[in-house]
């Protein structure tokens, strides 16, 4: 009985580590789970979409609790994982509101983050043996 509980705890930790990896590096969760084709597709597509959003002069929104929509956009941006923090520390994603492509850039950045969150959920399901 004790061994079963320990196994379950280990399995839960493994699942959460997979989710953490999947969030930090898009596709890493699927690669760790042996879904190579899916993992590689996410690894290429999602960071590319994020980079495209930065190139289009989109903004990486700050977490401002006083402005709920800005805070939600920031959460969505952060969905892409480590790339968000690298871009932030490199000074990218300042966003130029007058740029023609500003709103497109935001759409690319936000949707890339949100889709990576879906990828994390999919990795969770695979790690749980549901898929």
């Amino acid at each position, binding site marked *: 009985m004790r061994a079963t509980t320990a196994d379950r705890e280990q399995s839960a930790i493994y699942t959460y580590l997979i989710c953490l990896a999947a969030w930090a590096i898009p596709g890493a969760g699927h690669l760790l789970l042996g879904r190579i*084709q*899916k993992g590689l*597709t*996410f690894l290429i*597509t*999602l960071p*590319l*979409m994020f980079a*495209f959003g930065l190139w*289009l002069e989109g903004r990486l929104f700050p977490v401002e609790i006083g402005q709920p929509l800005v805070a939600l956009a920031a959460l969505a941006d952060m969905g892409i994982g480590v790339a968000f923090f690298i871009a932030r520390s490199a000074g990218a994603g300042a966003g130029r509101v007058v740029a*023609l*492509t500003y709103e*497109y850039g935001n*759409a*690319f950045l936000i*949707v*890339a983050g949100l*889709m990576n969150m*879906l*990828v994390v959920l*999919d990795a969770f399901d695979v790690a749980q043996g549901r898929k």
Partner: protein
Amino acid sequence: MRASHLGLMIVFALFVSVVFGTLMRDEPREQLRFGAQLFTAFVVGGIALGWILYFFPL
């Protein structure tokens, strides 16, 4: 930088279709088929919506 709205919409549709096609289906052939359907729906839907909104002045 020169960027057209249609071009950016097509690139956006392409990214989203690739991710959703890969996420929602397991076999590469099915992924390609579903991704192509999504891409077509996005582009055709976007153009159709654009024309509908054309008749509503700001």
